[in-house]
């Protein structure tokens, strides 16, 4: 691995990695059962530098912002390196946002350049606000030959034979602007520096090193903070290989493990639970005798790995299970949302360690992670090297707000000094999450102080961002909350959005109104939908300017309706 303390920017570190590990395979792009491309570090450089030269020729200067909107694929990484090479700042946008949201964030970030997949560009071009797009240069990947690209150019043709000039950046310079949320109301663009990423990479690889020969399976898009670090920067600076799978379909994920003999993979709880379900279904099909034998072997494995994982032993005791994962899997990393301990235990009993972690974009991704010394299914792990974690204003049980101080914490929120001042206080990042540190230094999470949910797919959803869909609903007033904001200590496993509905005097909840609610809800992407509603019989408290006092209302609801399950009517 490169000594990252010697570098001031990601571009320089990546540049050296491409030289040092030139002959090693760094990137494989697979789609279902096909392999679209396989590049060595030297070939990756050959693919990226003509693009870097073209971008420079088109006027991309240091500190210019270049947005990327792509699914999980190799051109994301090639483009990212080209942007860093010429000193640009990357704005990674979630491809699952709507075209209107993309346009909003492109405007907010003031991106001069955009690199985007054709099907996404087509949607953006058809959006009503497209005419307001100020982005000057747009490169579109994989466009059909006859496609109308408007003013955009083809990514595949953006190549220059000129030698691009490498632009060195300093540690405090911005590397990326990553939106952690806020597409509906107040965009939260986390400004992350080169120092943030270099330190995060040092921290993670101190516990989970990569080396040439390691194959990391990437199924999350690279705009995802976890994948940007462990599916791009981390493996590259260590000479390891990333296998990008362009589909999330469970059958192809399973196939990729064996085909590419995967070493590590990061996933979100939704995918891990799907793998668990698939394995359990296979176990259930076994004849009773074989099932009993398998249970016996699982018990033997459990007895010998209670203190520490022992991969060699587990692979011998449970060869078929490990064979199904390719035989070389060392660990899975799960984060981004709450993970049920039973699922973690299920995999650990099979000899497949799943490192549960906790992090947030504002902290430069991971803050805590399990280190398997010993395995703990009940916590989100211990602070990674270089991370200081403390609990602010703990109650009698030691539960308070989790605060983080580290060289990985973002510089600020883009163009929002007020929000920055509320979030980074005296050098500590106030996470808004409620937690407790136990006597062994492990962090336990209990809920949130902030009004938001995190889906099983690892997406942050802020209720204010979706309220506009329900505007004009035939009720006196309504307000949407994260259920954990109303009932903060009811556990993180049941994250959902809840609408609090105040009807007019004498009004009943008619079928018509209920249907209206359901139909409006369906206009939202499935992961942003409201899960249920609470009928509230008092007027909402409001400020002098008539804004709803959300915190006061949430406290009233939590106090008057202490039982979440009986208060919420599912939609």
């Amino acid at each position, binding site marked *: 691995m490169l000594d990252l303390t010697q570098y001031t920017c990601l571009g320089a570190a990546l540049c050296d990695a491409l030289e040092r590990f030139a002959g090693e395979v760094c990137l494989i792009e697979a789609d279902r059962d096909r392999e679209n491309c396989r590049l060595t570090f030297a070939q990756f450089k050959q693919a990226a530098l003509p693009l870097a030269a073209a971008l420079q020729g088109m006027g991309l200067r240091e500190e210019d912002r270049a947005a990327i909107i792509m*699914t999980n694929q190799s051109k994301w990484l090639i483009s990212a390196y080209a942007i860093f090479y010429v000193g640009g700042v990357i704005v990674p946008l979630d*491809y*699952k946002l*709507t075209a209107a949201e993309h346009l909003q964030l492109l405007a907010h970030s003031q991106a001069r350049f955009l690199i985007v997949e054709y*099907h*996404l560009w087509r949607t953006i071009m058809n959006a009503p606000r497209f005419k307001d797009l100020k982005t000057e240069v747009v490169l579109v990947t994989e466009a059909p030959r006859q496609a109308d690209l408007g003013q955009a150019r083809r990514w595949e043709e953006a190549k220059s034979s000129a030698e691009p000039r490498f632009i060195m950046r300093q540690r405090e310079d911005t590397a990326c602007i990553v939106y952690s949320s806020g597409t509906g109301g107040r965009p939260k663009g986390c400004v992350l520096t080169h120092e943030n990423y270099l330190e995060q990479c040092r921290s993670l690889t101190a516990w989970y090193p990569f080396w040439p020969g390691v194959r990391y399976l990437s199924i999350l898009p690279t705009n995802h903070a976890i994948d940007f670090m462990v599916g791009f920067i981390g493996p590259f600076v260590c000479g390891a290989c990333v296998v990008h799978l*362009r*589909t*999330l*379909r*469970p*059958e192809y994920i399973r196939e990729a493990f064996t085909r590419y003999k995967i070493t590590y993979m990061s996933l979100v709880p*939704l*995918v891990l639970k*799907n793998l668990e379900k698939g394995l359990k279904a296979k176990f259930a099909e076994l004849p009773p005798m074989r099932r009993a034998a398998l249970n016996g072997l699982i018990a033997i494995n459990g007895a010998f790995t209670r203190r520490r994982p022992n991969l060699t032993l587990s692979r011998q005791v449970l060869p078929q299970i490990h064979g199904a994962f390719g035989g070389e899997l060392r660990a899975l990393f799960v984060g981004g949302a709450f993970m049920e301990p039973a699922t973690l235990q299920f995999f650990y009993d099979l000899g497949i360690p799943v490192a549960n972690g906790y992090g947030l974009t504002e902290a430069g991704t991971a803050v805590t992670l399990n280190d398997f010394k010993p395995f703990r299914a009940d916590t989100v792990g211990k602070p990674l090297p270089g991370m200081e974690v403390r609990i602010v204003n703990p109650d009698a049980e030691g539960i308070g707000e989790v605060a983080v101080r580290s060289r990985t914490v973002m510089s600020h929120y883009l163009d929002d000094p007020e929000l920055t001042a509320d979030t980074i206080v005296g050098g500590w990042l106030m996470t808004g999450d409620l937690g407790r540190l136990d006597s062994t230094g492990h962090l336990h999470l209990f809920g949130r102080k902030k009004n938001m949910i995190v889906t*099983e*797919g690892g997406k942050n959803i802020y209720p204010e961002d979706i309220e506009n869909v329900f505007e004009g609903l035939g009720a006196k007033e309504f307000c949407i909350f994260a259920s954990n904001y109303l009932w903060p200590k009811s556990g993180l496993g049941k994250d959902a959005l809840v609408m609090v509905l105040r009807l007019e005097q004498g009004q009943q909840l008619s079928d018509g109104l209920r249907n209206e609610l359901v139909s409006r809800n*369906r206009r939202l*992407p*499935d*992961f942003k939908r409201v899960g249920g509603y609470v009928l509230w019989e008092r007027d909402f408290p409001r400020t002098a300017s008539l804004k709803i006092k959300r915190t006061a209302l949430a406290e009233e609801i939590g106090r008057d309706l202490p039982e979440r399950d009986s208060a919420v009517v599912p939609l």
Partner: protein
Amino acid sequence: MRSSEQTLEEILALAATHFKVPREKLAPDDDFFQKLGIDSLQALELLTRLENHFHVELPDYELQGVSDFRTLADRIQARL
């Protein structure tokens, strides 16, 4: 060439078989996540079944923003 209505009908029939629900319980404008009680990964499994049935390739993103059978049928019809 199939008509849009035929495509829609075949999708409904396939979804009913794959998720083991009576065909008559599914309607074109149903939210399939809700009606079938499935998550986004299970919906992708259905997409694979549909690819095999219609002999077209349907990238994962074809499911983006889609939650009812009719819109799904439109997306597939456009690729037939």
